[in-house]
């Protein structure tokens, strides 16, 4: 992916991106060049307060020490969401034993139809380690705001046949809880795995 496109995506989200620059997270350190858009220090909160399918409250702090990938979607979506989950299934396979140091989290933008039961049955179809989180309308909106995720509901012919439009990026958060990468939906699994392996091993 070209630098221009990275910067365009970053600018669109109001994030500071340093793709193509030698910023450096430590003194004198050259910034690692990722395949994803580097948003380190870009001001993305990446916080959430949601529930897992067992009803336990989950926040980002629960996953400190692991690299976390978060993305937003809804299970009624037959297109991008399963495609993204399949890509992460492949990423897990590429990462091998390193995959145990990664937590993939799917946050539903459609808590009304994506009940705990649906999320509990759906995510393991892709990988047993994937976690689906949901909140009430306010908690969902707060999580989306923290990730600067856009979502909207478009009415359908019946009250239950609405569709959701939403941002299709993945977000990688490092072991210390800092948002690091914006993962475009069309990046190859190999490219994503390479980026995540770097975050896992550094």
């Amino acid at each position: 992916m070209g630098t221009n496109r990275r910067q365009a995506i970053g600018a669109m989200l109001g994030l500071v991106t340093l793709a193509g620059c030698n910023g450096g997270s430590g003194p004198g350190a050259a910034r690692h060049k990722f395949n994803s858009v580097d948003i380190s220090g870009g001001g993305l909160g990446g916080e959430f307060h949601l529930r897992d399918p067992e009803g336990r409250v989950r926040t980002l702090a629960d996953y400190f020490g692991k690299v976390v990938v978060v993305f937003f979607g809804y299970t009624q979506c037959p297109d991008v969401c399963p495609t993204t989950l399949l890509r992460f299934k492949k990423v897990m396979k590429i990462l091998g034993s390193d995959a145990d140091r990664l937590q993939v989290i799917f946050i539903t933008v459609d808590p009304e139809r994506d009940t705990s039961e649906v999320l509990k049955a759906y995510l393991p179809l892709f990988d047993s380690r994937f976690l689906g989180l949901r909140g009430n309308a306010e908690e969902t909106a707060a999580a989306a705001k923290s990730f600067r995720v856009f979502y909207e509901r478009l009415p359908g012919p019946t009250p239950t046949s609405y569709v959701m439009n939403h941002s299709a990026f993945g977000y990688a958060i490092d072991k210390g809880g800092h948002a690091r990468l914006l993962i475009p939906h069309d990046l190859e699994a190999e490219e994503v795995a390479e980026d995540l392996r770097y975050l896992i091993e550094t």
Partner: protein
Amino acid sequence: MRTLALLASITLMPIAALAQVTVSSPWVRATVPGQTATGAFMTLHSAEDAKVTEARSPVASVVQIHEMKMEGGIMTMAAIPSLPLRAGQDVALKPGSFHVMLMDLKKPIREGDDVPITLIVETANHLRKAIEVHAKAKSAATASDNGH
């Protein structure tokens, strides 16, 4: 047998002349209990210019043809009034473009189910034909028609 075949060809001829549309590799994404919508995918091929104006299925109360678009990282999905079929060209309904959206499902669709879908195709001279499709339900974790 020969007579039957001949009779069949005579009976079918006017219909075939209306719109020769073939459907290949139809499949539906299976659902988990509680999931009320899913999508059907297939490849359509029409010998002449035509369009799919409607889709119906007994498994869902609402059936629409949807187009998925990705704009600036935002995924949008919307019903389209009709799906154009250009003469001699394949039109793929696949993840990343079009799909038949099955909503308000009457029951979960399990892997291996046969899902009947009727497509209404209209030719340039406004002749309409119903095409019966039997889509096989595959795991939700299916990438495309070959299941890789």
